């Protein structure tokens, strides 16, 4: 069964702004799903609708087969949402925060205590138990925020830009934590991000959004393959040699995009093997010295920039 199924979802705010423009997507059970898009693409609006915080204008949404309009209360008991802002209560202790969450989900006290101990250990929060929550660093607060949202053992955990503003080490620790949540608890994770490397390293499925609509959904590998356009990279000894090479290469591959980056050239391929052969042949013929020539696959960043800058028909 799909964890989330969204079809033709539209959200128009009262001020007339249309945040979602017929978005459709599918999230499989147990996967890490990343929603990728620039600021204003509609990611947060979509997450707010899926977590039942906002009502959509039109469209179909089902969460584990349950319709979000008619069975919102049932859906709420099976999901948890970690918002962009850390929403822990700094007047309560770490354990009080977690027990408070469990009370609202009507989890029996003994069961809640057992689960709390597991989560405190799993999220490495033991050494913070004796300190007030208000003294925690941003990264620890974020960990606690996720841990307390796991108290209800949600089937789906929504994370709205969970690593925004974090340093590299904290971000990588957070990635490990997300993988651990999925492997240890079998939770489906739906996250929004605008970090490409985050989506690429974590996700089973990535959906790229633009202007309130999905432009592409697939695995990171599928998305990279989407462009089907490899790059030919020719490296020269220095900038001068690269400029000489640029003249000849641009002339030979006229009509193609050839870009000079310091001491190397990038050429958009039509047929990478043929292009490689021809470029090598040309450089030998013209007696232009070069250091290396290779075919590069497009990165996810290339896909993202291409899709979000031009759009896809």
């Amino acid at each position, binding site marked *: 069964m799909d964890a989330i199924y969204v079809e033709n979802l539209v959200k128009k705010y009262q001020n007339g702004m249309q945040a979602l423009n017929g978005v459709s997507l599918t999230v499989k059970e147990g996967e890490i799903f990343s929603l990728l898009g620039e600021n204003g693409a509609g990611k947060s609006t979509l997450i707010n609708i899926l977590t039942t915080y906002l009502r959509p204008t039109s469209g179909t949404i089902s969460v584990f087969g349950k319709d979000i309009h008619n069975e919102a209360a049932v859906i709420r*008991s099976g999901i948890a949402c970690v*918002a962009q802002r850390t929403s822990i209560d700094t007047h309560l202790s770490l354990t009080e925060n977690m027990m408070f969450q469990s*009370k609202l*989900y*009507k989890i029996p006290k003994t069961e809640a205590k057992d689960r709390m101990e597991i989560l405190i250990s799993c999220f490495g929060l033991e050494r913070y138990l004796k300190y007030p929550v208000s003294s925690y660093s941003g990264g620890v607060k974020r960990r606690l925020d996720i841990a307390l*949202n796991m108290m209800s053992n949600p089937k789906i955990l929504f994370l709205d830009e969970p690593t925004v503003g974090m340093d590299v080490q904290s971000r990588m620790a957070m990635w490990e934590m997300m993988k651990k949540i999925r492997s240890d608890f079998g939770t489906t994770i739906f996250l929004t991000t605008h970090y490409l490397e985050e989506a690429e390293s974590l996700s089973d499925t990535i959906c790229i959004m633009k202007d309130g609509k999905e432009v592409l959904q697939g695995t990171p590998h599928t998305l990279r393959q989407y462009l089907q356009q490899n790059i030919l990279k020719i490296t020269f000894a220095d900038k001068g040699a690269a400029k000489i090479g640029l003249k000849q290469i641009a002339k030979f591959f006229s009509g193609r995009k050839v870009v000079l980056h310091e001491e190397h050239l990038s050429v958009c391929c039509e047929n990478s093997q043929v292009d490689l052969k021809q470029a090598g042949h040309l450089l030998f013929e013209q007696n232009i010295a070069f250091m290396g020539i290779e075919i590069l696959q497009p990165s996810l960043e290339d896909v993202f920039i291409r899709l979000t800058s031009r759009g896809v028909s």
Partner: protein
Amino acid sequence: MESTNKYFFKDMSVMFGRSMRHIFRSMDTIITVSITPIAFMLLFVYVFGGAIETGTENYIDYLLPGIMLMTIGSGIAYVAYRLFMDKQRGILERFHSMPIARSTVLWGHVLTSLISNGISIVVIILVALLMGFRSSAGILEWLAVFGILGVFTLALTWVAVIAGLAAKTPDGAGAFAYPIIFLPFVSSAFVPTDTMPSAVRVFAEKQPVTPIVEAIRNLLSNQPVGSEIWTALAWCIVIIVVAYIFAMRIYKKL
């Protein structure tokens, strides 16, 4: 919705427990809602009291109802502040994606306001007793006093909910309470209205604090209560209904 409404009172008590912890762990709240009114009471009784002619033997007997209303005014400012902070920190967002009845979030704050203000009032009365306050009121009169104060608190709390939900800054959330805290000064709370200039006197006699103060004062001195008690309650009920409707309208739009 049925399954969430079934746990309305349970969820509200969880929310109430959380807000009460906030109050007991926040020294500035305790100082503002209890110690400041006590300081005012000491100031009025021992500094100004001798120069004020109220027609009562004991100035504190005259003063106490006004101090009680001032205490409630200070207390409800924190309702707005706490609600605003819940909104700003994304805690309301988190609550709204949980299997709870949405309105329990507000009702938790409202119940906290009623109980915490009740505790503050009891503390103020105990201090007043130490300062010489005496009342000939019976149990029924005391219950009526607490009833009026409860309705007054409820009315102002719903106004505070509007301020907390609509404010853009923490200062903005608390600022609305200042006119309420100072409203007793332009009423019969501290001095009789007879000595006031005519324009001020008209305002003082018509504004809601005066009938509430008069009603409580008469109840505490075991005097017959005239129509002012009904005027007082009518004011409070109108404020409750209007403020509740506006608060819910704003809350649903969040």
